[in-house]
């Protein structure tokens, strides 16, 4: 029963990820005084890509062909580990938050390799930039989640969320820092403004889009879908770790219903915050990203240190 529920939850995750992308696009258009497409537009895009014939460059090897499947399944698996509407599901015990970061890295590695497989300048450029950014963003993310892990004495996401729920609403400086760090990392890792612009196809400024430039048809659909899932994953992580109230702790129908409603609400709010930052800030130049990411890293490390100095000490005495 619990396993079935876990699989259903994962399916819900995968199915609603394009909806979140559509919502973000809708809010962004409204804020920019443009006429918005329907929230369902990402589904239509995916469907359109699905029925188109894909094109492979002559120089591509099997890495290029199989990378979309690996990227997609790694991302789906990562989605399975993260509690969406209920905690204490068996899937969250299979892997903890460090494995989650590892799966993000696995997906990214294959995307980058696929970018380099063709042997064009764009692929290499996107790959180099993506790895540079992620090699600074990943430690910041790990530090942010470690802060939580040290407070909750666990790296298991379900247990950590239970811990936050059980201690109630306490203002912890470490969590504020970690939240800040994780939000900055989210923007960088999901390729949003000011680090990368998902809407651009101007060759010299793209990062994510440059890597996947050669993809088309159903493979592009898989990659796009995977990046929508990834965006939602980060959203769910922030929402459920720092504001877990409303998540179902028991597996009753009403609790689960409340969980779905609450996570939808939280993601909608987070989407609006993301759009606000996208509308208010301009894209940075690539060699400014390091400052941005070092700031995120610093925030996370500060969060960790303030936990150790302020909070853990209190437990001791």
């Amino acid at each position, binding site marked *: 029963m619990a396993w079935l529920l876990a699989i259903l939850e994962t399916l819900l995750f995968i199915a609603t990820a394009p909806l979140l992308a559509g919502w973000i696009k809708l809010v962004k258009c409204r804020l920019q005084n443009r006429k918005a497409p329907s929230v369902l537009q990402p589904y239509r895009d995916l469907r359109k890509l699905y029925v188109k014939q894909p094109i492979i460059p002559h120089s591509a090897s099997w890495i290029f062909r199989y990378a979309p499947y690996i990227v997609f*399944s790694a991302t789906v698996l990562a989605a399975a580990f993260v509690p969406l509407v209920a905690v204490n599901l068996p899937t969250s015990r299979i892997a903890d938050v460090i494995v989650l970061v590892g799966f993000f890295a696995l997906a990214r590695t294959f995307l980058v390799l696929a970018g380099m497989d063709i042997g064009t300048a764009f*692929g290499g450029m996107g790959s180099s930039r993506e790895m540079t950014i992620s090699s600074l963003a990943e430690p910041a993310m790990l530090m942010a989640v470690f802060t939580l892990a040290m407070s909750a004495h666990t790296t298991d996401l379900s247990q950590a969320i239970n811990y936050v729920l059980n201690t109630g609403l306490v203002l912890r400086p470490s969590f504020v820092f970690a939240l800040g760090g994780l939000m900055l990392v989210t923007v960088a890792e999901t390729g949003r403004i000011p680090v990368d612009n998902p809407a651009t196809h101007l060759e010299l400024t793209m990062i994510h889009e440059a890597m996947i430039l050669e993809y088309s048809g159903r493979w592009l659909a898989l990659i796009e879908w995977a990046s929508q899932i990834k965006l939602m994953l980060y959203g769910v992580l922030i929402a459920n770790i720092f504001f877990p109230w409303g998540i179902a702790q028991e597996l009753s129908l009403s609790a689960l219903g409340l969980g779905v409603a609450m996570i939808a609400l939280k993601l909608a709010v987070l989407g609006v915050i993301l759009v606000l930052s996208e509308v208010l800030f301009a894209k940075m130049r690539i060699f400014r990203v390091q400052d941005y990411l070092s700031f995120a890293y610093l925030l996370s490390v500060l969060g960790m240190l303030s936990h150790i100095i302020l909070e853990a000490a209190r437990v001791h005495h």
Partner: protein
Amino acid sequence: MPLFFAYLSVTAALISALAASVGNRRIELQRLFHLLLQRWPETLSRLDVVFSEKHYAKKHRDSLFVLLGLSGLFALLAGVWILAGTATITDTLPLGLPWLHWHVRLDPLSGFFFCVLGLPLIAVSLYGPGYIREFERGKHSLTVLGLFTGLFVAGMELVLLADDAFFFMIAWELMSVASYFLVVFQHEHAANRKAGFLYLLMAVIGAISIILAFGVIAGFGGGLTFDAMRDTGLSPAWASIAFVLALIGFGMKAGLVPLHAWLPEAHPVAPSHISALMSGVMLKIAIYGFIRFSFDLLDQIHWQWGVVVLIIGSATALLGILYALQQPNLKRLLAYSSVENVGIIFMALGLALIFLSTGQKELGSLGLVAALLHCLNHALFKSLLFLGAGAILHQTHEHSLENMGGLIHRMPKLSAIFLVGTLSIAALPPLNGFVSEWLIFQTALQAGGLESGVLRSLIPTASAMLALTSALAATCFVKLYGVAFLGLPRSQHVAHAREAHHQGMLYGPALLAGCCILFGVFPTPLINAIAGLTEQLTGFALPNISALGWLWLTPISPETAAYAPPLVLLGAVAVGWLCYYWLYQRKGMEPRRAEPWDCGFGGLNARMQYTSGSFSMPIRRIFSPIFNARETLEEHKSGPAKTRVTSLRYQFNVPDLALLMLYEPAGHTVLRFARWAGGMQTGNIRTYLAYSFFTLIFLLWVIS
């Protein structure tokens, strides 16, 4: 019985050395066998086929590696046997000094390192016959290569068996000196001779430091045997002196910053299968020495030692990978990455020292388990990568990443095997490198329970460094794979490369790749075995390591952290297969081959790709204060006002700071001192007579 296998293993390595040294005397050997086997004429006729000129070279070459392979197999058997039983076997050999025979001891710790040695050695013995064929026609004698390979392996095995300081040092020096001759095997290149000299020098300094470290304990205790040393109660000050000396001595060999600079010079210039043994195994022998010394021989551990080891380990890991990222030479990159991995192992050892000395014995054991597991993992994937690099070198004669590319089309099997190594060393799930780093993170995250605020904040800072290191390692190895194997070939001979025709050159790395996957997906039995041996060292077991069953890994408790790699892999395969099944096999929608996007200009070529140097340029720019990179840009301009740039030439060189700031100044100081001391040699007979006179007077004064 395990000890018997260990002896067999050493004997096989020594016979291999012997066989190599007499191997080029074919006629004499044939005559010798005729004398020995006069009574069995039918065996003789078969033997004559072997000794015929046509077959002899191949048989001889193969026999050396068969013996090495047997040595590896016996080492593995001995190791697994002793690990399964957790008994300790001791013995005394009638060799050595009259009053100090060689004491031999095989316990689970040395047994584990026998396994670490055995697996790569088996792979190397599969790989070697194909690889050294090219040396046969060259000007280098295989006698030297075979002789010193055998001695090198035997030396490493004897280090693991040694149970007294005297025997230990003899074995240690045998290992060092034999590997020196392997480093300078291709001595016609000046760079190799220089690297060899640097290596020998550092090995000697390291050995002196180790001898002094043993001397400190032996001076206070009853003797040179390790048993006597274990019972020596040292004062904290003397224990710390011994510890620092051992850290310098073993750290020199293992490649700790700032003593590491010889390593990336020496390891890459040896033949590739030797590089694999040096980076994969010899560094682990140094780590074995350090563990034996500080966790076993010294009876008390102080937390300050752990802090020193943790800080040095973090610096080593981070600097190692940053330098690795900037290397265009494939084997040098791998050598720098060994420095990084040694740093990671020492970080785990530092955590173990801190936790053990502050009374958290269980966490200390966990740190030690993580360190040992990473030793094994690194031995597997680094040997794999060096053997793979050797195969590329063998087929293309190309060292530099800047000239590679597109090898996945030319060498599909090797590229698949190499990919496994790349993913493992980049610490990606579900492979083995991830498991050990996960364990180190889990150990570090338990720092909240420590009393001291300094330690509580130091350990998370170190884990931040580890996080950065592993992210950079992923970047480094993605770059390596992407530049060498993917894209378009950047030079002619790479474009025409072919898969190695000797199958062993693929089987060896494939064996290691299989182990990487196996230990990545099913780590729990292995970790249980290691936990058994750390229990002997620290006295504390890890009770919860498989609390949820063998599928799950739960280092501390099921609530704290759980990881089930088999289920993760199962999930990934299921999801991947489902979407492959639904999406790939679509009738009438087969993908179409076309030109890649070239902005509509046409004429894409291999020189337009990102190179190794350009891929790592952003990192070079971001970490520029550490690198001291020397970049030059030459522009050739033409046209009436010199406005049109006709050609550009960009060069960069990243010298190692340790070489510039430690090695060279030290070298200059020694030279200056030598010149000053050389002033005594006036060449004048009267001066020398005066020296003798004053010496005599001094001696008379002494004895009177």
